[in-house]
């Protein structure tokens, strides 16, 4: 049975598909979007974080670490440590759980046990399980087994993807997936490369291919001020989405800043500066653009 790297299992997840859902976040993403609200999802490896609000500076982590030296100081052990062997002693020693490892190796069975805990809430609400990331298709075998196990358990399955995956992986899981949440960020290839670190060619081709066979696709458009909120960019996105047969609705997701403190905890730079969330009027205007192309469009979701 396959294993995979999971960084969070979120219960009562109400914005990742219909009904009450549990969202399983798989770690690792091929894109590096500047606005990512889950920066801890990007690396396909485990990462150490320290929640600064919880750390009491007791130094238990340093005392537990066999490799710590005087340069690491008395208080909280630095997280960027080239000598770390991932023995886990510092995390185990942390009394406040401020120090955590993001990313846990889990078996399909372990994930399913967690997912099935909320079955009573899925049944009447039309909910189920959502696999998100990162990019869940970065772990294609693990994802396929999770989807098959979910199907076997009678759960509604949703996959939240950025579309940057091998076409055979995407089409391979399609029959096991009741609903796709498919991100479309920018139609302009150069700008896509600038803001996400990759071309959008594969993403667009994959969507076209998926849309020919799969009939339940919701397009998700993160609305990022100054990046993709101008009328021409939105119109291009809308035109493309409307051309794909399987697209059922479009969700416009206003950018928010929850990623900033998370990036800081990971020791990563925040490249957004003081970018503010889009005003309500801008979200409404974006929705109108999609509606003009005959698409059902909603804010959030």
């Amino acid at each position: 049975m396959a294993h995979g790297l999971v960084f969070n299992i979120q219960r009562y997840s109400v914005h990742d598909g219909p009904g009450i859902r549990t969202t399983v976040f798989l770690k690792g993403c091929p894109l590096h979007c500047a606005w990512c609200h889950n920066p801890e999802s990007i690396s396909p490896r485990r990462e150490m974080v320290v929640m600064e609000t919880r750390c009491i500076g007791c130094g238990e982590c340093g005392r537990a670490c066999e490799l710590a030296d005087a340069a690491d100081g008395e208080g909280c052990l630095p997280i960027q440590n080239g000598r770390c062997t991932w023995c886990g002693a510092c995390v185990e020693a942390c009394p406040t759980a401020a120090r955590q490892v993001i990313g846990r190796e889990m078996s399909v069975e372990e994930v399913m046990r967690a997912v099935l805990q909320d079955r009573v809430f899925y049944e009447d609400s039309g909910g189920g399980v959502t696999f998100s990331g990162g990019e869940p298709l970065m772990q294609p075998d693990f994802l396929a087994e999770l989807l098959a196990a979910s199907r076997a358990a009678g759960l509604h399955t949703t996959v939240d993807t950025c579309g940057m995956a091998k076409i055979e992986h995407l089409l391979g899981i399609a029959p096991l997936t009741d609903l796709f949440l498919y991100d479309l960020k920018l139609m302009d290839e150069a700008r896509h490369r600038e803001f996400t670190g990759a071309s959008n060619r594969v993403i667009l081709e994959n969507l076209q291919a998926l849309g020919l066979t799969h009939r339940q696709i919701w397009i998700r458009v993160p609305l990022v001020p100054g990046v993709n909120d101008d009328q021409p960019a939105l119109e291009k996105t809308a035109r493309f989405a409307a051309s794909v047969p399987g697209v059922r609705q479009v969700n416009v997701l206003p950018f928010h800043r929850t990623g900033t403190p998370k990036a800081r905890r990971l020791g990563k730079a925040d490249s957004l500066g003081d970018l503010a969330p889009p005003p309500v009027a801008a979200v409404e205007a974006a929705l109108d653009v999609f509606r003009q192309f005959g698409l059902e469009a909603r804010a959030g979701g």
Partner: protein
Amino acid sequence: MNDRTAKLRRQSLDTPPSLSAERARLITEFYQANAGRYTVPVMRARAFLHLCEHKTLYLGDDELVVGERGPRPKSVPTFPELTCHSLEDLRILNSRPKTWYRVDSECLKVYEELVIPYWRGRSMRDRMFEELPLDWKAAYAAGIFTEFMEQRAPGHTVLDDKIYHHGMLDFKRDIRAAMHRLDFLSDPHAYSKRETLKSFEISCDALMLFAARHATLAREQAATEPRPERRAELLEIAAICDRVPAHAPVTFHEALQYYWFCHLAVITELNGWDSFNPGHLDQHLLPFYERGLADGSLTRERARELIECFFIKFNNHPAPPKVGVTAAESGTYTDFANINIGGLLRDGSNGANEVSRILLDIVEEMHLLQPSTNIQLSCKSPDDFLQHALRVISRGYGFPSIFNADTVVEEQLRQGKTLEDARAGGCSGCVEVGAFGKEAYILTGYFNLVKVLELALHDGVDSRTGLQLGPTTGDPAEFGSFAELFAAFRAQLRHFVDLKVAGSRLIERMYAEEMPAPFLSVLIDDCVLKARDYNAGGARYNNTFIQMVGLGSMADCLSAIKEVCFEQGKVSLKAMVQALDQNFEGQEVLRQRLMHRTHKYGNDDDYADNLMLDVFNACFAEVDGRPDARGGHYRVEMLPTTCHVYFGSVTGAMPDGRLAGMPLSEGISPVQGADRSGPTAVLKSAGKMDHVRTGGTLLNLKFAPNLVGSEEALQKWAHLVRGYFKMDGHHVQFNVLTAEHLRQAQAKPEAHRDLIVRVAGYSDYFCDLSFELQEEIIARTEHQEF
């Protein structure tokens, strides 16, 4: 609201609560003049008649529903025959910063010269404390349990539909018939039964006299009223008071006025716990509503206006203040009249109707502190009814709370009630289940489970005082296993439940024999039939509750001990107890570990949840089925009101990392902040308990507004509730607000006086809560989504 009800509401909100010595004076004068002339029940009924005859009446401008317990709105009478306030008590009430009551010099004078000299040593409370055993008093003083009836009468019941087809003259006919059936030739109790029935009859006359005085007052006001519309209203009020309560009501207006007279009578006769309550008001009013619409005498707007006037009446009646330690246990103006909306009809079909919708609209628009409201949600209740209620809840006023009508029925069937009586029942007070109009379900007091564990960790010695309060159950340093510790807890638990029940039974008998409630008895089946008072077991069903407090704290304490001391062996139990005794001084790392690195109840984690179950099952085994002193049985409930704050203040540091003096967990909610896995996990954890074996459980969830804002979110929220109720969850309530909002209110109370939050089983003004309770509500986990 229209202009009238907006004005009356404003008046009710703006009038400061005050104490009135009038009732105390009238009662004292009556007792001075009549002591020894009558048997106890007749004495009580005549005292009630005396009050109805002589109390100052109030009929305010523009009122449509009339009658006040005090001489004017928000003026609260006292009950010196139950508990007699000292001058010091009265001064504290006047000057304390929260939930104060204005006490004027006239009131102090009446107390000093008349009331205190007569009732000192004669009040129920004084006499009770003479009779209760020393070890009971020691446990009470240590904060192991409280006793409801030390200051207020048993009460705590709800009315069914009988007054809507039965006037006081009909009740009198039934009482006469019962008198005729008495068998003086062979029944040794025939005499006392006759005295009881006499007391019932007198109290019916008393209420009719009270209504007649209102009719006269309304006509007097009409005679001098310059506005023709108001004059017509006053004459109509007079005509209504001529008809009810003597006769069964015919119109919607009469139905409301009749209930209100009964309400005033019950809360004037005695100061019963949780005032009184119309129960399924929507179901009771529906026939009058439909008839009024059909014959053109009523419109929806008029019905709404009348109910709004009725609601304001409840808000005019703050709870009578308590004395001594109980003032700290539950400092609130709320008197817990909790109106049921929706639910089931006797035939098992859905009971939500058009009046239910009017009630929900009123709750949303008026957001008064009183009355409390709840919805009774059955699997048969339509989704639009639930979503309507959730929309009201999402406004953040804390009302209504949500009960599982199907579980409420099942709980009552387990207690041996008939299916029809169970369906006509519901919830009152905070979360308590009862057969409306047919049951005395008396709460006897809160029970501090965590303190009992503390005693088990100290061989029965209270570490605050050094007193040996409990049995010696062994030095914890010698416990070789978790099972030995749990056995010690069980032994302490049994000891203190024994003590609690022994005390309660004594107090129950004192009320049965010396402080009957004749008017209430007229309203509750089968007191007339049995010729026995409500307080003496006259009701068809009798149950007596002990309310267990600190379940979540208990689960987390036991989980920490089991894991850290026995499984990991990181800290010996001896070292743990030492750390507790030093309030974790110099042991912050250990405390943080206990708080953050052990299994916690509320996360759908069987490790901690199974320990919660062990504690619940222990409570159930110790309490359920013990005989009470009225022919019924003891039962458990899991609700704290605000007592978890008081109990926390008398309990030292505990192994869940809680510091000495901090609040315990409330109801069956997780320890504040210990639930980190979202609302479904909390509901799953709470759903592991067998709610059907309780008389009520209380679960509090705080929701940020963004989790309930859209229609889609509302639907998911509705499914969340339905999911919990599938697991037989009894009750859930939601606080919809942000911590930021609460911080603002805490910093600037003057600007946020109207902020109502659900506390624990009821809603209260946030700014009236103690600082600790405010802090706790802020700390309660916000279930923010990503």
